[in-house]
């Protein structure tokens, strides 16, 4: 597994596509979907708001959300960008829209400094005592783009 920073050093163009697909500066919150593994081994899906700080990818599990326990227990995750709806009516929009999915492991990174720094990346989110910050390691990346048809770029950590 690699950190997002290590992935970006090896694959700067792909990492930049991913960063832009996951995080837009002009939005207060950027949603993506997160899959985790429940205690009984079945998958679970949640909307989440990933963020970047100092070149690494972070996630915040808020309050009593069951994904927090999933991540503590197992750590395995898959994250997929949401898609705008414009492309459904407009084929040209679909071509412009990047689909980006990343999977790997989540590790708690809840020390006060990281917590504060990650909190500061959100314009309107003030963490309560139950919010826990996780750093996401990268195992696999898949980007679906458009170049005269769908094209796929893949990357796996060593």
């Amino acid at each position, binding site marked *: 597994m690699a950190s997002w920073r290590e992935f970006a050093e090896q694959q700067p163009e792909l990492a930049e596509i991913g960063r832009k697909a996951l995080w837009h500066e002009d939005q207060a919150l950027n949603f993506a*979907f997160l899959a*985790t593994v429940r205690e009984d*081994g*079945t998958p679970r899906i949640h909307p989440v708001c990933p963020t970047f700080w100092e070149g690494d990818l972070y996630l915040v599990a808020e309050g009593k959300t069951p994904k927090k326990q999933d991540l503590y227990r197992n750590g*395995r995750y898959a994250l997929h960008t*949401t898609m705008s709806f414009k492309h459904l009516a407009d084929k040209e929009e679909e071509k412009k829209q990047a*689909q980006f999915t990343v999977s790997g492991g989540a590790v708690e990174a809840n020390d006060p400094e990281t917590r504060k720094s990650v909190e500061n990346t959100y314009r309107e989110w003030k963490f309560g005592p139950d919010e826990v910050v996780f750093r996401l390691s990268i195992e696999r990346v898949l980007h679906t783009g458009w170049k005269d048809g769908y094209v796929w770029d893949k990357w796996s950590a060593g």
Partner: protein
Amino acid sequence: MATWGDFKETRPELAAHGERLIKQHGIGLGFIATIRKDGGPRLHPCCPALSDSALYVFVVETSPKLQDLLRDPRYALHAFPAEQDEEFYVAGRARRMDDDATRYTAAQAAQIGSHRVGDHFEAPADEVLFELSIERALHTTWENWAKPGTRPIYTKWNEEKD
């Protein structure tokens, strides 16, 4: 194991919210999570289809989630993001359906553009059909959405506890 039809009979309002959110853009849309061979989760966008009595999904033969579902049928499906962050989520098991009549019904329900042949839809030979059973369902709306003090309002269904 409950079909969508069983679920709808037991919890008609919850199922109606689900149908509305899955089909909010006309064609059914959602994200489906499966379990990979190595035990990690996989997450893909998909086009779920709702007939009167069943929830279906077509999976192309080359998709890695086909092998996931044949190995471990447990899935989770989340509708696309909606207005005011309303959410709908179901989980259960996927069962492969190979008979022509079911594939035909599912193709009419799915209304996927690439399946269209003249005035109807045909299930393509290189796509495998699964019926998705419903073991759990969750609908979420938000009180004071996008305002201070926002909090989720959950409506849940669990087949085992029903």
